[in-house]
């Protein structure tokens, strides 16, 4: 038990879409510098969880606390100013703006507590320096994902929610992304990573939460998760499934 309260604590979170409970009492916490993996079958509520924490949806029950403050239902831009940011499964950069302008907007409006970022350095760490003056529309999908990450990092987040950044990347790109994510965490940022690639999750995370039907069914390290009977059942189907 660490004496410091966690940076993010999610407590009994509920999100309904009509009669469907996408989140059904989800609870977990996350500490600074930690990489927490969020895994589970399709439709288990992983992206919904990120959408609620990042202010896209207001929660229908339960609470989200960030740095000791209840943040459920705050609009996204306010959450960005508090130090929460995210990447998108399908990145939607500002297509008609240049790569540099994309990052400059986030730098200008993100209220980074460490002051304005050095855009060239940030772009260089994400391999975007050579395309800095191109329009975002001209980038390939891997580059657009990196630009989405650059947009998030420019705001100086303390909590970064990463939604399937690795999907669609080739093995060399995957290795680079893994290194980059670990480096971000080393700088003290708390990371919540949603991913389908279990090898990737196992390599980068300190801890994982396995979700099913809107709630957590396992919490611990990845190596134990794959031994857990409930987890195996959720992913591969149980004997009693008809």
């Amino acid at each position: 038990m660490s004496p410091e309260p966690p940076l993010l604590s999610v407590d009994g979170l509920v999100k309904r879409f009509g009669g469907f409970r996408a989140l059904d009492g989800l609870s977990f916490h996350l500490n600074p510098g930690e990489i927490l993996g969020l895994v589970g079958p399709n439709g288990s509520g992983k992206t919904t969880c990120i959408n609620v924490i990042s202010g896209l949806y207001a929660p229908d029950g339960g609470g989200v606390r960030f740095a000791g403050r209840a943040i459920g239902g705050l609009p996204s831009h306010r959450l960005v100013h508090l130090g929460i940011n995210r990447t998108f499964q399908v990145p939607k950069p500002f297509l008609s703006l240049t790569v540099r302008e994309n990052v400059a907007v986030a730098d200008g409006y993100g209220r980074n507590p460490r002051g304005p970022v050095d855009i060239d350095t940030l772009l260089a760490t994400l391999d975007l320096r050579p395309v800095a003056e191109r329009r975002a529309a001209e980038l390939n999908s891997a580059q657009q994902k990196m630009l989405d990450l650059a947009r998030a990092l420019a705001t100086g987040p303390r909590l970064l929610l990463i939604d399937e950044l690795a999907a669609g990347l080739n093995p060399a790109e995957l290795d680079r992304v893994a290194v980059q994510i670990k480096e971000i965490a080393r700088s003290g940022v708390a990371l919540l990573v949603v991913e389908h690639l279990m090898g990737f999750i196992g390599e980068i995370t300190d801890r994982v939460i396995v979700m099913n039907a809107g709630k957590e069914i396992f919490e611990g390290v990845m190596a134990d998760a794959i031994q857990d009977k409930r987890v195996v059942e959720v992913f591969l189907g149980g004997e009693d499934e008809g």
Partner: protein
Amino acid sequence: MPRLLRHTLLILLPLVAALALAPALYGNHLLLFNVIVFLTLAQGINIIYGFTGYLPFGYVGFFGAGAYGFALAVMHLHALPLVALAAGGLAALLLGVLLTPLLRLSGAYFSIANLAAALAVLQIVSNPALESVTKGPYGISLSGVFDPALAYGVALAILAATTFLVIWLRHSRFGMALQAIREDAISAAMAGIDVVRGRVVAWLLAALVAGLTGSVYAWYISVFYPETVFGGEITIFAIVFALFGGTATILGPILGVVILYGIYNAIGISAPQYFQLIYGLLIMGLVLFLPNGLASLLRRRGIDVP
């Protein structure tokens, strides 16, 4: 900001100087005045459509609200023209505030709702039951404040301020934030931008521009009917001019007005049937082959259009 200064000196100054000198060289002052009106309205469309992506089919509603705000202040409050001008701007701003819920809609739904709103304002203004207030359908006469020379100068000042606003948007952080919102509102929010505030500010700026233009138009012509200042063709012209040249640029709407309004006046009045044919074909060609206007032709060749 050197680019702000450069574009002010190279675009705004020559434009204003040319239009200030033109009445001395060219006899048709009404035509010159209309050029100023459409230059201002096209830049107003540029602010709301070019920078936020909302296409207001009822943009003329703000123009008409401005004209009637001006007229009512003159008729009922005996206000001086410059005070009445402020009243016209305020009327358009109030209409803009009233219509902010429309910004929840997007695409064609927004455009149609805005068109309906403008028609509703026209119906209210031209209601015979309101004759004692608005003169209903019988029209307005403001002969007491008729001063076309001064009105021309004021219209030019409004055009200058509007063009400067667009130059500023083109080069400012706020203008870039608006373009980010236009491209993707969710990503923009995750860049820390207050999306609702950005949209409302752009919307009200566009409303104010049209309101002031409508006010000065009412002052200049001084005799008009509701249909004169709420006519749908005013919106259509402003939109087509802005789109033809290219939105989210400074020069695009200016080129659009100079070229298309030029064609309109060259052949539209002498041979209206050919004009309508050419104009119709032009708009179709534009939508099909050049949706981002003339500016995109140059941009494709790597030339940055200011």
